[in-house]
Each structure stands twice: as C-alpha cells, then as structure tokens.
C-alpha cells in the first residue's frame, strides 16, 4: 500500500510529462516516416513555361476558395510569364534552393518600401499581383507565431515524404504559412502532405504539396507547390 502511494507521484509526473509532450509547442524534431533523411539543399530547377503552363522545373499556383487542386479555379497572376497565367514559375535563390535540416530565415524586415519581399535565399522573389513574394523557413512562423520543425525530407526508396511546416511566403506586408503540415502538425482544409520521388543515382527529385492559407487576406486559398531539381548533399550543414 505504502509502495503504491510512493509510486503515485511518479505516475502523475509521467502522465503530466506525456500530456505536455502531446500538447506542447512544437520542437524541432521531425515526425516524418521511416526512411533516410536527405541532407543538403534541394536545388530549385527554374520553372519553364515554354507552353502555356509550367512544363518543367519548379512552380507555384493558388487555388481559389471552394476550388480543387485538380480543377481549380486558380488565381490568375498577371505577372506570370506563362501563357497560362495561373502558373508562376519559381527560380533558385542565393542558396540554390531549400536547405534541409536548417532554417533559411527571413530578415527582421522582410519587405522593401513598396511591400516587395526581400527573402531570396530559397527562391528568387517572384512578382505576384505587382508585388514580389519571397520564401523563407523560420523557426517561429511569422504568421501563426508558432514554433516550427526543421525542414526535413525523407527518402524511402524512390518515395519522398517530409515536414515543411517552417515554410512561409511573405508578400505585400503579409505573411502566409505555406508548409505541410502546418506549424503544430495540423493539415487544415486542402493542405496535403509533402510527397515526391527521388532518384538516388542522379540525385534528381520532385516534391509536391499543397497548403491552405489560414487567416489573412487570402484566407482559404490554397498554395500548390512543386519543387524539382537535384539534391545537393555537398552543401549539407
């Protein structure tokens, strides 16, 4: 009896610790599935829209509220160089692409005087509705103010999965988390998991995900992201 009484506080502490680990702010460890974590930089191959759409390389589209990733309707970006202006090609930034296992944070002031994003490590800022948007991965998400996980992509054979909850787009004085899952692990609305393919022999990869915007002027719009290029493991941190 007394032994049981003595063990009660320990059980209580263990339960509290378990609950805290389940409910607490995110840490920086990954929750991706089995497989080999990739290291280095996912280089971004510039999107090419020789035809109407982006036919090769990396791209971004945005689904309007109530639409679907398959059929749209998509937001028309008047600044797109493509024939089909619902496609916006992405171009590599100063780091060449998305760094895994480390953040590529935005600056303290991520906008210039006219609202153009200045974050250019991952991708070159692209004009969207006359104002450039930029990408960054931040330890604390600037839109939700929640802690995020380190960007992680895991290869299981030729299949890729990942956690890009830290990815945020900045545009016109606004911030939009564009990760999957969202900081905290949720997958709201049309948000879908990071999936892709990987050719270990060449290092070529292709990664896709969708991320529904929660809050702000584009609440309920969904970003559709496709990154492709090669994994530059030499640039691992």
């Amino acid at each position, binding site marked *: 009896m007394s032994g049981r009484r003595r063990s009660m506080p320990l059980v209580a502490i263990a339960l509290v610790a378990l609950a805290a680990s389940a409910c607490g702010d995110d840490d920086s460890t990954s929750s991706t599935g089995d497989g080999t974590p990739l290291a280095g930089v996912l280089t971004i191959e510039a999107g090419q829209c020789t035809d109407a759409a982006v036919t090769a390389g990396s791209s971004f589209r945005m689904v*309007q*509220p109530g639409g679907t990733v398959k059929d749209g309707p998509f*937001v*028309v*970006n*008047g*600044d797109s160089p493509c024939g089909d*202006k619902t496609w916006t090609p992405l171009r590599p930034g100063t780091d060449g692409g998305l760094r895994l296992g480390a953040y590529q944070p935005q600056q303290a002031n991520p906008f210039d005087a*006219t*609202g153009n994003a200045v974050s250019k490590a991952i991708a070159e800022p692209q004009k969207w*509705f*006359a*104002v450039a948007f930029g990408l960054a991965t931040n330890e604390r998400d600037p839109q939700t103010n929640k802690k995020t996980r380190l960007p992680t992509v895991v290869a299981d054979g030729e299949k890729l999965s990942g956690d890009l909850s830290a990815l945020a787009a900045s545009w*016109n*004085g*606004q911030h939009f988390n564009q990760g999957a899952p969202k900081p905290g692990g949720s997958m709201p609305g049309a948000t879908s998991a990071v999936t892709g393919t990987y050719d270990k022999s060449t290092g070529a990869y292709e990664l896709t995900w969708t991320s529904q915007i929660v*809050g*702000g*002027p*584009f*609440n*309920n*719009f969904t970003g559709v992201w496709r990154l492709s290029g090669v994994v530059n493991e030499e640039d691992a941190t």
Partner: protein
Amino acid sequence: MSVDASNRRRRGALIAALVIGLGLAAAPAAFGMFSRAPAGGSMIEDFRPYMRESKIADFRAELEVIGAAAGEAPGGTAAVDDWKRQWPAIDDDMDEMLTTMRDDIDEFRGVSALPPFVLFPWFFVLPGLLIAGLAGAALVADRRGRPWSRLRVALAIMGIGVIAAPAIFQMFGRAPGGARMIDDFRPLMTTERVTSVQQYFLVIGAAEGDLRTSVLPRTNAAEFPATTRFVRDWPETSHDMAPMIGAMSDNVDNFAGIDALPPFWLFPWFFVVPGVLVTVLAFVSRERRPDRARAVQLIERTAAS
C-alpha cells in the same frame, strides 16, 4: 412586525442578495463572455487602423483611381474585359462598405474607449463574488448572533458601486452605439461577403497585371493617363487593401461571437438592475436594535397572555 417576521425578512433579504451576487458572478460563464469578450477586443484592435475618416477617404480616393481607369482603359484581354464589366458592381459594393464604416466611426470610438474587453467578464465576476461573500458573511454572523451592520453597509456600498459603474464608463451612451455598429456590420462580417471582397481584389489585380504587362505596352500610354496612374498606384493600393481584407477575414468568427452576446444596449442594465436590488436588500436587511427588539418581544408576549 414580530421578531420572527423581522428575522425572516432580514435573512430573506440576505439570501436574495447572495443569490444575486452568485448570479452576477455566473453571468459571464452563462453568456460565454470569457471567450467572446477577448474576441471582441481582438476585433476592435484589428479594425482600429481602418475606422478613421482619413483612412476611409484614402480608400475612396484609391477606388476613384481604379474607377477612372476602368472607364478609360482599352480592353483586349479576358482579365481586363472582366474587370471593366464587373467594376460598377464592385464599386457600389465597396462604396457601401466604406459608407457603413464611416458612419460607425463615432460608435467605434465609443466602444473602443470602454475598458479592455478582456476585462468585461471580471466586471461581473468580482462584484458578484463580493456581494455574495458579504451577504453570506452577514447570514453567518446573523445566525451566530454577532453584529453585522458593517457588512450591511458594505453590501449597500457594493450595490451603489455596481449601479454607478455603467455611468462611470459612459456605457449608457456607448453601449447602444455598439449595438448599432454590430447591426451595421452584420452584413459585412460574413464568410460570403469576405469571399466577395477577396474576389474583387483578384479581378482588379489580374486586370492591372494585364494592363501593365501587355495592354499598355501595345498602346501610347500617354493617351490613357487614368490607366497609367492606376498601374502606377496599384502596389500601394494593394498594400492598403490586403490587410483590410485580412482584418475582415480574420474577424468573421470574432464578430459572430460578439453578435451571439446579449444586445449591447442591455449591458448597462445588467449592472443597474442587480445594483439597485442589492442596495434595496441591504436596507431591507437592517438589524433591529436589540433593546427595541426586546421591547417588541415583551409587547407581543403581553398581548398573547
């Protein structure tokens, strides 16, 4: 009045004051104020930058620039044609929205001058608990035959304080204004309306992109000064519009929470009515002096024999 009747009256008054105090303390939980009041505060803060005459005048000026361009710009692309076709309806809707906001600036100022919304539930809970505590302590003292006239005085002061609170915070003028503002904002703060405004932004933005990148370069831009100005001003216009759309979008749920509260104009009376009752009950519950009570008892016994 017999001593028993006097005791019953006194204790009845104290029990009533106790119940009123507990009711006042429980009201915020019953009305969901602990979540809705902070939501209201959040909405006030988000809308504060836009509920100014100068800001609304800026928006109107920006809409005029877009309108002038819509009347002047050459068509030729689907996005531009769509914008020119939709513009009159967009302009009407946005104008109505800005008019509503401008008309409610004084009401907004009144509401935002109230104490922080997050404190509102505690304006009920704390006096309620104090009233209940004083009434309960007086009941216990009375049962034990101890003097409790100071508790009764404190109870009366609490009652008067609760009556005075709405006047101190000028709630009689501000709360009905808040109620009017909520009525006016009800059609604006819906998901459907916010989605419409988001669509307006897309229509205007897509047209601007086409005008800038393909339509104007094919023309003599000097022939289209209003269109050229629209294209020049658009980054700043979108910089102004986007956060306002965000504020609307982010506060649809907050507004629904506020709208689910009892009507704002009733709020002063949620203080006045219990305050008056508690004050009256404090007077009703006054102790009879022991010598007078004994005299009354003696007269009653004599009469009975």
